[in-house]
């Protein structure tokens, strides 16, 4: 573990009273390795190391009886600061419905997360409606319908919209929600690659039609180095308002969280911690920081 490695380094220089260049490099190298093993993007790691360099080998560490723990604390505090404060509460729209649009790569957990959000919105006294805008994946609409039933939230489908495309379905859903008095609209979209030009363009058109209050990127906790490029592309196209990290119930270290936060700068709204519709938690930066550090 990082603690063991740092302990080893500081053991070797005990009594020397000062840190030489070589030891400084060694300490920073171990931190770098730990963050890369946790899937933090290598450029984000570079910037991070530069930020903590001075502190990590400063007076405080040298004077400490447990320098390894001091370094860990400095790294962890910096991670927490970068991951942002505790989850900011969702602000409901002045004029309903509040529109949430979820997007992301294939299989990231969007459809399931839509249902989780719907259940959560209901628990907040809202009257949500789910919108099935994935006309691409086999049985995607059915999947959302089944989940909608499970959480007791109506699902607006392309059939109901009399539409053959997601943008039209979204537009109709908005009219329908206003007519029916649903004050929260949660829109599921098809998974897509950030480099799929026609699909990214379609997403932009959906965004324009919906004018969402929350545009949330759903990111699988296992996402590796490309998290930065993925998040950047979605953000540039849509102006994301937040991120949801899914599948945090596995043992992925979740470094993608830091990568995405670094490039998008928007809050992590929620964390998905299981397959059931109640498996949605607020984001706790200190927990994620500890996890990234392993």
């Amino acid at each position, binding site marked *: 573990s990082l603690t063991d490695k740092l302990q080893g380094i500081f053991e070797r220089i005990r009594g020397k009273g000062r840190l030489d260049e070589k030891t400084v490099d060694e300490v920073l190298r171990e931190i770098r390795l730990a963050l*890369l093993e946790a899937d933090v993007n290598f450029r984000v790691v570079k910037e991070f190391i530069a930020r903590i360099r001075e502190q990590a080998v400063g007076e405080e560490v040298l004077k400490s009886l447990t320098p390894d723990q001091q370094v860990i604390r400095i790294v962890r505090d910096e991670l927490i600061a970068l991951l942002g404060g505790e989850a900011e509460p969702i602000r409901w729209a002045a004029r309903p419905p509040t529109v949430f649009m979820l997007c992301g790569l*294939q299989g*990231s957990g969007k459809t399931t997360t839509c249902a989780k959000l719907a259940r959560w919105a209901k628990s907040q006294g809202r009257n949500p409606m789910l919108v099935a805008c994935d006309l691409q994946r086999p049985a995607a609409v*059915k999947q959302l319908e089944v989940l909608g039933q499970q959480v007791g939230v109506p699902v607006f489908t392309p059939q109901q919209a009399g539409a053959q495309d997601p943008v039209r379905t979204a537009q109709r859903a908005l009219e329908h929600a206003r007519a029916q008095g649903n004050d929260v609209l949660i829109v599921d979209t098809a998974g897509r690659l950030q480099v799929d030009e026609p699909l990214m363009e379609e997403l932009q058109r959906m965004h324009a039609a919906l004018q969402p209050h929350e545009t949330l990127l759903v990111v*699988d906790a296992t996402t590796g180095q490309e998290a930065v490029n*993925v998040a950047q592309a979605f953000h540039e196209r849509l102006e994301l308002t937040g991120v949801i990290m899914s599948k945090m119930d596995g043992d*992925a270290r979740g470094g993608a969280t830091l990568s995405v936060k670094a490039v998008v700068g928007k809050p992590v709204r929620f964390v998905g911690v299981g*397959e059931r519709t109640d498996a949605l938690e607020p984001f706790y930066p200190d927990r994620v920081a500890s996890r990234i550090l392993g």
Partner: protein
Amino acid sequence: VFTRRGVDEELLEELEETLIAADVNVNAVQELLETLRQEAKAQRLREAEDVRACLSALLKGWLGAPAPLTVSATPPTVYLFVGVNGVGKTTSIAKTAHMLQRQGKRALLAAGDTFRAAAIDQLQIWADRLGCDLVKHKEGADPSAVVFDAIQAARARGVDFVLADTAGRQHTHARLMEELKKVHRVAEKALGRPPDEVLLVLDAVAGQNAIRQAEEFARALPLTGIVLTKLDSTSRGGAVLTIRKQLGIPIKLIGLGEKADQMAPFDPDAFVEGLLA
């Protein structure tokens, strides 16, 4: 490029970043670059492209020769698809069925995901599109029973291949891993031998956790191969290098999109080219 000390450190740094950006495990990168440093010195490599070619050869060495899918002399040949949530198991089954059909073979699909919303519907749509049989039970049924029935049905109908779907599951979930072991046991019992392939489906977008997934699924089941999906994304799936080298599990198939014909046998040369791009 070649200094008195050896290969230009700047070039090695550049290669290190390329590999890390491709999700190759950081310890694997250290090992590869150290070997590269020695090889380059021993072979007195001077040009950057020669150093790259040397690295390319090392990477191919780690991946080994391409391994084809097993086909049994005693039909049906049974392939079990396993893996964590959302990696592409169900879609990969459709693609494998399509591939087999192109070879004039018949496949029967087993709807072994009896848990997730509309999982059976999803596979049914694929079966309809492909024109292959689907054996399914009610939602919530025992997945082992579905796979058992599918094997019996394949025998009865003279179908050469059974492709069995399973629900996505996190390897950290002990009960779900036990359920999977039971599916394997029951399939083995129905077949009179272990399933001919136990394929771990991995998402190329995943980073180091792919290695954890492989380790844990390998502890639960005798994995025979990996299906690496979503290589059409910008991710390059470098974590599989460690999986191949340390666990000895060969990558057999790759996914290159969401359509039935977007799957190919694993080609180590093309893969390494992609890593170093």
